[in-house]
């Protein structure tokens, strides 16, 4: 009984935190100044947002077939979503969409954007 209560609490905490990150990701998507920074905001949604919601659902499902499927979905998202973000930004850069950049500081790490 007590264990059920704890797993329910943990699961709800995960679901609510995940929803929070999804909403903030959406707000960021609207607020950010250009394409590349918008992708950063979207990555909030597909890492911690989706991850925490899946974790919350996993706690609800327990050791069942549904749980195994949720785990596979989580793995798929973890491998596929960075690949998709990379493909999107690379395609944008190759097509010549110039990113809005902050003025560079006098720092050897900073490099001006190259012409693709």
């Amino acid at each position, binding site marked *: 009984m007590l264990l059920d209560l704890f797993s329910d609490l943990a699961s709800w905490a995960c679901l609510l935190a995940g929803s929070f990150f999804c909403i903030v990701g959406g707000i960021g998507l609207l*607020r950010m100044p250009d394409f590349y920074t918008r992708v950063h905001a979207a990555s909030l949604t597909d890492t911690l947002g989706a991850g925490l919601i899946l974790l919350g659902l996993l706690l609800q499902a327990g050791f069942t077939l549904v749980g195994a499927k949720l785990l596979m979905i989580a793995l798929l998202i973890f491998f596929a979503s960075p690949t998709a973000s*990379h493909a999107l*930004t690379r395609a944008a850069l190759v097509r010549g969409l110039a990113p809005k950049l902050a003025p560079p500081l006098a*720092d050897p790490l*900073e490099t001006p954007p190259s012409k693709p």
Partner: protein
Amino acid sequence: MPAPFLLAAGVGSALLVVWFARRLNIADREGHPVHLAWHALFSYWPWLLKEIAVSAWQVCRIVLDPKLPVSPTLVRFKPSQITDVGLVTHANSITLTPGTISVEVSRDEFLVHALTREGAAGVRRGGEMDKRVRALESRPELFP
């Protein structure tokens, strides 16, 4: 009910195919880096999850800040990984961490777009992530 027989036949033929593929040496190490998985599960993944959580929180604060303090920066550096699996793991980890995206990936150079200058300073050759992925791929059993 034919279910037990069908399941057993399915498992049996899958195992048989795996065995054949291993004997034929066509279960390639690049495509299925299973040898990395167990080790990485306990060393690299927890660290990466912590990094994702920390930087997600930072990006959250930037998004919710009324002034929206972004300083988008492109940064180039040469990764220290040697194997393809290492390079892909490094590039994917950069993109998974909110606030940094690997835009162009090659053996000689990574081009990373970062949401802030501080984020851009975090990814570089000899940085924490670079070192950890290098340590992951340089396990001796990778080069038999």
